[in-house]
């Protein structure tokens, strides 16, 4: 669960800096939300 929460927090940071980049890095930034 910790990894998933951190993933969302990290994805927020990535999306804030580079929205399109967040889509290119889904497994890296959000993969942990899928059990």
């Amino acid at each position: 669960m910790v990894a998933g929460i951190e993933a969302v927090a990290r994805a927020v940071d990535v999306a804030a800096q580079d929205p399109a980049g967040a889509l290119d890095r889904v497994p890296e930034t959000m993969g942990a939300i899928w059990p």
Partner: protein
Amino acid sequence: MSPFEDVVDGLAERIDGLPAPAQAALFLAGARALDAGRRAWASAAGRGDRDDVFDAGCSAAEAAVRRPGTAVDPTLLAAVDATTPHGPTDVDGFTAAQDCWICLGTALTAARGDGGAAGSTWYLLEPLLQATSERLFGATDVGSQDEEAGEAAVLADP
């Protein structure tokens, strides 16, 4: 407020401060991360899960993220909302599938500049909360106020 709600509220506050394209990107990324669950549930439920609507929604949201100002057809958002499943809930993976669709709808809503994306933060983490609860306690519902200790244990799970 439960421990999980505290976590969600903290993230939602940050998401609320993002510009609309970033919100759209975040929730589209969430929908794509949960897509394997959506497909698995649809297959197990014997439900034709309208991959055409899902894929069209993803394409429209992605276009709006990569080319801000790209219009999102409101009928597509309506189709995504109408396709978001409400059952069968007793087939494993229903919550992840429903949350996947909700994330896509939120991405499209944000891409249209309609606001309110932060209110969907819960759905990014709900599938993992349920899966972790089930693994630790054999039940998905440990989120009530009476079970805060259990929820805290779930939140502390690596």
